[in-house]
């Protein structure tokens, strides 16, 4: 074992760390499939305006065509207002992805900053305040917290992002703090101090880059659960307002039609499922790729 690990790490020393992670990620078929799907979804989201016309295809309705099962004209059928589900799904990627990404971005920015402070100034009042506040936020179950926040702020896309984002903050604070703590305790930080590098240089050059991997992994996994949270809130009528074709609200608007017109829930459901799956596979892959313990 011991012998082997030394051999392996020597072998990888040739590449940069990011290159090394990428190299290992490339070997992971699941992660690459996931990454492919995410890139595709991102492209669809960016090109949504080119692919479909928002006014006529996405929100424009032809009520005589309502509730049509999938056919050549409408490959995923039409919804209860006669809109083409396929067009709405394509355009909806924009909302669903942005809800997931922005929510997590909010959580990351706030969480990482707070977590880094808490981790770097350990033992002080700063840490105490931050961690106690985090405990309080984390004590309330995520979904309830999100519901309460959306109820207070009102249901719209931005508030949805905020509420999902806020509920994810404690995770990022804790992850970052833990990572900073581990890294700060490492000998190379000590040696950086010993050779007299400045405090800021230590934080930015040595500590933060080495904390990235748990945070990156957490981000990919959190994006997918943010998408699910958003769709759950949509189910409760607290989601992206109509007629925006957010997948979660499409899914929940189809719930009354589940028995006769299951395709109305099937396709948005699949879209969510595939997206979540893709982010998770990438997240898992990244974790495996970044975790030295899992090297083979």
């Amino acid at each position, binding site marked *: 074992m011991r012998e082997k690990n030394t051999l392996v790490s020597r072998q990888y020393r040739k590449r940069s760390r990011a290159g090394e992670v990428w190299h290992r990620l490339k070997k992971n*078929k699941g992660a690459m499939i996931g990454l492919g799907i995410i890139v595709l979804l991102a492209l669809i989201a960016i090109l949504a305006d080119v692919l479909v016309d928002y006014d006529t295809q996405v929100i424009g309705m032809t009520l005589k065509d309502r509730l049509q099962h999938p056919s050549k004209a409408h490959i995923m059928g039409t919804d209860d207002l006669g809109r083409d589900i396929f067009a709405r799904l394509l355009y909806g990627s924009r909302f669903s992805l942005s809800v997931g990404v922005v929510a997590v971005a909010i959580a990351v920015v706030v969480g990482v900053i707070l977590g880094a402070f808490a981790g770097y100034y350990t033992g002080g009042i700063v840490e105490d305040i931050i961690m106690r506040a985090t405990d309080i936020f984390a*004590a309330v179950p995520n*979904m309830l917290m999100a519901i309460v926040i959306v*109820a207070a702020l009102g249901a719209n896309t931005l508030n949805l992002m905020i509420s999902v984002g806020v509920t994810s903050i404690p995770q990022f604070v804790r992850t970052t703090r833990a990572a900073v703590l581990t890294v700060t305790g490492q000998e190379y930080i000590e040696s950086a101090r010993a050779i007299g590098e400045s405090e800021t240089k230590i934080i930015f050059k040595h500590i933060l880059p080495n904390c990235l991997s748990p945070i990156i992994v957490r981000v990919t996994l959190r994006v997918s659960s943010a998408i699910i949270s958003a769709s759950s809130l949509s189910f409760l009528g607290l989601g992206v307002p109509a007629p925006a074709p957010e997948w979660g609200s499409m899914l929940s608007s189809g*719930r009354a039609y*589940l028995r006769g017109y299951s395709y109305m829930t099937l396709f948005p459901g699949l879209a969510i*499922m595939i997206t979540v799956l893709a982010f*998770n596979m990438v997240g898992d892959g990244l*974790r495996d790729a970044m975790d030295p*313990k899992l090297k083979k």
Partner: protein
Amino acid sequence: MHRYVIKRILLLIPVIIGVSFMIYFIMDLAPGDIITQLVGEDASEEQIAALQHEYGYDRSVFYRYGKYMLGLLHGDLGTSYITKKPVWDMYITRLPKTFWLAIGASVVAIGLSIPLGIVSAVKSGSLIDNSCMVLALLGLSMPNFWLGLLLIIEFSLNLGWVPSGGFRGFSSVILPAITIGTGHMAVMTRTTRSSMIDVIRQDYLRTARAKGVSEHKVITKHAFRNAFIPILTIIGGQLCAGIGGAVITESVFSWPGVGRLIIDYVHQRDVPVVTGSIIMTTIITGVIHLAVDLLYAVVDPRIKGKYSRKGLRLAPRVKTKRGAA
């Protein structure tokens, strides 16, 4: 040990105060207030004024919060604006149902995830590993109400095996427990897997193998027990989430649980019910976390020593990877 438990319980107090403050203010300041809910749409001004006075809405939110907290100090969770019942009574009738659902979901999640996670870890990197992980992820990525309704249609309507909803004995727990449990699967399987992978490469497993312990026992006894702590953390976390109520699954299965209690009264702006229920959830969650931390000591004797040591600030939280909760 006692000191530790007492310390942990005392540490809950600031959290409760923080949570109550946060929830009370958010709820109180949310648009729409209880007066309109209570008095209906064609009330006179006098009526509204009388009610505002009765509920302290003619004064500042700090006054209302202070009054509420004063009651809380005496163990009073408040009285519902809507039903006029003590919040404690309302909460406590819902709690057992939520509790059984949370337990059921955990049983489903544990029963499915741990075998999957162990197999994944043992066969890590293989096709089996990947299929296990995808299987586990399917549970997570399938929206709960969708899965729930599909299960009702199949097992209740078509096969007639179980009731379609409501809390009616053991058989009624099965479907909602599966709905929630499969959602927990992804995280738990992943945790089991990575924790087992950590452990599987430990020297003491080699020692065990070297003394002739069968491979099966090496994994299930020697490795699993060591890998169990992060899994225990996840189980605790999911149990806590369950105690908070699974709003959506409860809706689909007409389950009279805590989650729906809270959301129904959020919609009606019944501040005491929402605040009181969330405080109770916080307390129970805190107790579960404590129990989990104490269980660590049972699973891993090394931790026991840390609890009895003086001056310990916090629990030796075991770092875990929680993806999606």
